[in-house]
């Protein structure tokens, strides 16, 4: 897979804002960001209220995804360009959803909102109104999603990549530093997990590092390319960013995102936990 198959540059995006069959979608948890200005023509997807089941902890089912995309005016044949704040964490999370439900013509805007803003490109508050579609999704692709039992079974057997910050990995912090420090019942990490923070896969402007840099990074950290890989973080969005780097950019075939992540694992009764800096 070529990098161009999964990423677009800000220059490309700016030149294709009105291209037929191309739909831009901003994905944020902080929807005020979109209200304050968004890429012209982009629709908004709220990761929490629209991509998550509102009762149990899970994401929207196939029917829910179909209803959501239909309402957003996204058709099965559209090319969807996802972008968002926070170095594209939630855009990568949505990208993973789109792939999970079989929408293969989807790409990330490299650098997301951050790069777009730093470049001084146009943002608008104009309302976006797209005609509803009749979107049909595929059954979820279980090959790219990991559940808790598979994570426990992977200890010492598969690559487990903890993409949280070193301070969360060691147990010093329980959540990213912009959030109050409360989260799972226990701090630490899954035994045998490598700590390769998502931030090492990105440049300061939010764009992904080159494939050569990414390959060197994961090799240096001890990732065994001959083994299957499971990535996790706190709630599964930063690990979507790393899933994107490993599966979509580097082309590793067996990579799963564990979206239950530390908020689930760190509250499970009886599972092994490691603390400190060692894997």
């Amino acid at each position, binding site marked *: 897979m070529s990098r161009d198959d999964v990423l677009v540059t800000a220059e490309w995006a700016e030149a294709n804002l009105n291209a037929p069959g191309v739909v831009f979608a901003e994905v*944020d*948890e*902080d929807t*005020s*960001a979109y209200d*304050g200005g968004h890429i012209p023509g982009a629709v908004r997807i709220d*990761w*929490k209220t629209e991509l998550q089941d509102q009762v149990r902890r899970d994401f929207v089912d196939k029917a829910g995804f179909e209803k959501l995309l239909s309402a957003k005016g996204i058709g099965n044949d559209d090319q969807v360009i996802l972008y968002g*704040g*926070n*170095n594209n*964490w*939630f855009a990568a999370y949505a990208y993973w959803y789109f792939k999970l439900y079989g929408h293969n013509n989807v790409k990330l805007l490299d650098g997301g909102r*951050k790069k777009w*803003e*730093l470049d*001084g490109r146009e943002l608008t508050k104009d309302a976006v109104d797209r005609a509803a579609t009749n979107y049909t999704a595929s059954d979820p692709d279980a090959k790219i999603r990991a559940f808790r039992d598979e994570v426990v079974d992977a200890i010492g057997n598969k690559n487990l990549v903890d993409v949280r*910050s*070193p*301070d969360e990995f060691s147990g*010093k*912090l329980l*959540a*990213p*530093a*912009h*959030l*109050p*420090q409360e989260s799972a019942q226990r701090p630490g990490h899954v035994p045998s997990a490598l700590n390769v*923070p998502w*931030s090492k896969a990105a440049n*300061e*402007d939010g764009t992904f590092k080159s494939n050569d840099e990414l390959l060197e990074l994961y090799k240096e950290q001890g990732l065994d390319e001959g083994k299957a890989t499971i990535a996790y*973080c*706190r*709630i599964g*969005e*930063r690990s979507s960013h790393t899933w994107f780097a490993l599966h979509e950019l580097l082309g590793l075939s067996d990579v799963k995102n564990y979206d239950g992540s530390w908020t689930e694992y760190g509250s499970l009764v009886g599972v092994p936990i490691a603390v400190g800096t060692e894997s």
Partner: protein
Amino acid sequence: MTDGCGAPTQTADLAGVDLTTQVVVAGRVRTGDQPGSGAFVRLLNGDGEFAGEVVASAEGDFRFFAAPGDWRVRALHRAGTGEALVHADGPGLHEVAVVVA
């Protein structure tokens, strides 16, 4: 404030924050005489490793929930970059100013 991992725009409002238990690193970004509105502000630990990132408010304000220790605050803005160091010795508010140039 939401409970996800995203980076909501910050305000200097510390209402509801328990400063007897939380280690808060907060401050303001400035560029010249102007507030560093919309700056991307990162908290890095003593080894320079990423711990969190927020977008500064219209007034340039930012806030992090940290742990005791030495921290580096780094701001990225269209006008340039800036850094400042802060030592947090325990729970409470630890203020730091960052000038971007």
